[in-house]
């Protein structure tokens, strides 16, 4: 008997049929899967949120990476926003999502402690979206924990149908998937329908499809940290569209499958090997040469 693949469409239909909210449905599903109580499941999610909060704090201290290539940008953004002549282009919710996402990216690059959700390289997107909405939409810790179950469940579907690894599917599979998880969770946390969660997931993949993984010198720094910020924004955009009642012509499962097929056709050079994209620009190559010479003297 062939095992059926996980399906976000299927979960959405089932939750709708049973008149359950998607978070309620997915909490039940994961309790059965992990053989644990709702209390234990949400407590585990709370623990993860606490680690994420600490990662944001550490990133915002302005830490620099060990290679010296990156660091301090999230702090710079906070300071700029407080400046007298600051022109706000994003608005507070989007700005904070970017700041927190980049802070976690900088914490990760500086060997700080992070939750690899879904991966270390894309660990900023979920905290970015979650903590901005917590602050500006007054979401409780319980709502956030339930949202994390939704995010993780979306990740389970992506992991099974496609991949969450940059080495397998490019950055679209890593930061892109993180954005899809965050977008779906944001819709659920703000009271959107199960259908709207699926729409948000599909919209993210439509907007980030083809994003390659091209780290300078193979390090999780350039362009990874800013991509975490960018993908937090993509998540908010998709959630905004879905919550406004806009639908997606392509459904969530098909959008995930399309991401897989694009990932499969990406050349190896664009999948975490530092063999193309930003990693092979003259600036990147010159820096990498100097860095490796220094590392092995």
């Amino acid at each position, binding site marked *: 008997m062939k095992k059926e693949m996980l399906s976000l469409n299927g979960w959405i239909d089932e939750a709708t049929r049973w008149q359950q909210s998607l978070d309620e449905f997915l909490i039940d599903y*994961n309790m059965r*899967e*992990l053989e644990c109580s709702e209390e234990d*499941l949400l407590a*585990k*999610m709370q623990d*993860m949120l606490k*680690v994420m909060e600490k990662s944001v704090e550490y990133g915002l201290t302005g830490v620099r*990476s*060990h*290679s010296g290539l990156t660091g301090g940008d999230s702090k710079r953004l906070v300071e700029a926003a407080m400046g007298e002549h600051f022109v706000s282009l994003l608005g507070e919710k989007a700005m904070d999502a970017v700041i927190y996402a980049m802070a976690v990216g900088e*914490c*990760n*690059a*500086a*060997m*700080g*402690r*992070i*939750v*690899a*959700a*879904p*991966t*270390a*390289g894309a*660990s900023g997107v979920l905290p970015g979206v979650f903590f901005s909405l917590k602050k500006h939409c007054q979401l409780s810790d319980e709502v956030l924990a339930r949202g*994390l*179950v939704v*995010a*993780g*469940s979306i*990740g*389970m579907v992506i*992991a*099974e149908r496609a991949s*969450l*690894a940059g*080495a*397998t599917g490019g950055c679209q599979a890593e930061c892109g998937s993180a954005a899809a998880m965050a977008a779906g969770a944001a819709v659920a946390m703000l009271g959107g329908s199960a259908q709207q969660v699926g729409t948000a997931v599909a919209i993210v993949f439509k907007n980030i499809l083809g994003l390659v993984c091209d780290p300078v*010198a*193979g*390090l*999780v*720094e350039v362009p990874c940290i800013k991509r975490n910020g960018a993908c937090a924004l993509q998540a908010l955009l998709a959630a905004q569209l879905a919550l406004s009642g806009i639908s997606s012509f392509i459904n969530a499962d098909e959008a995930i499958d399309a991401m897989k097929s694009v990932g499969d056709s990406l050349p190896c050079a664009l999948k975490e090997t530092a063999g193309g994209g930003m990693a092979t620009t003259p600036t990147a190559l010159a820096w990498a040469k100097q*860095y*490796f010479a220094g*590392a*092995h003297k």
Partner: protein
Amino acid sequence: MNLIDIIGPVMIGPSSSHTAGAVRLGLLAASILGGQPVQAEINLHGSFAETYQGHGTDMALLAGLMGWTPDDERIPEAEKYAKEGGLTYSFKKIDLGNMAHPNTVLFKLTSASGSYCEIMGSSVGGGQVKVTEIDGFPVELTGRLPAILTVHIDTRGVIALVTSTLANAGVNIATMRLFRSNKGGMASMVIECDEAVPQEILNLIGALQQIESVRFIASVL
């Protein structure tokens, strides 16, 4: 993958393969040696050799050898702790050829009691690891489950003796792999179990005539 795999693990950055996976390789190597080494020559191949400092792979490997887990906040300072704790170490670049996985490490470890062991392993992605060689002998050990590693003489019935000992102790076998140098020569078993194997059971297995050595390797995931 389940929800906990996706929303986790908690780890020290920046890379699941080059940092978290490296800690796990160190943990497995120390476990195979039978405890924390006092001397470690750490040979790095491929991507490990190229980017080990930027990813903190060197510190992660030392952290694992000292028995720390991938979420230990002392990892960035592992070198300092290693020096204070009396662990002498060196890092070298080696070329294991095109066939070797790009993230491969070859440990040459000496324990406090003077035993010596060479362990080769790779970080194969997403923090998953695989030990592929112990003292030149091919094995396959992932650290996902607690495991027993034997070195024995390839003889009829030796596998049945070991597995029935485990069965009598109520230990369930999850996976099992056999390796041998040649018929009737040195052989090895890697048995992954669903639960940890108590010392008295290991003693029983070790006492079997055909068994040269038996080691218990704790899970590192």
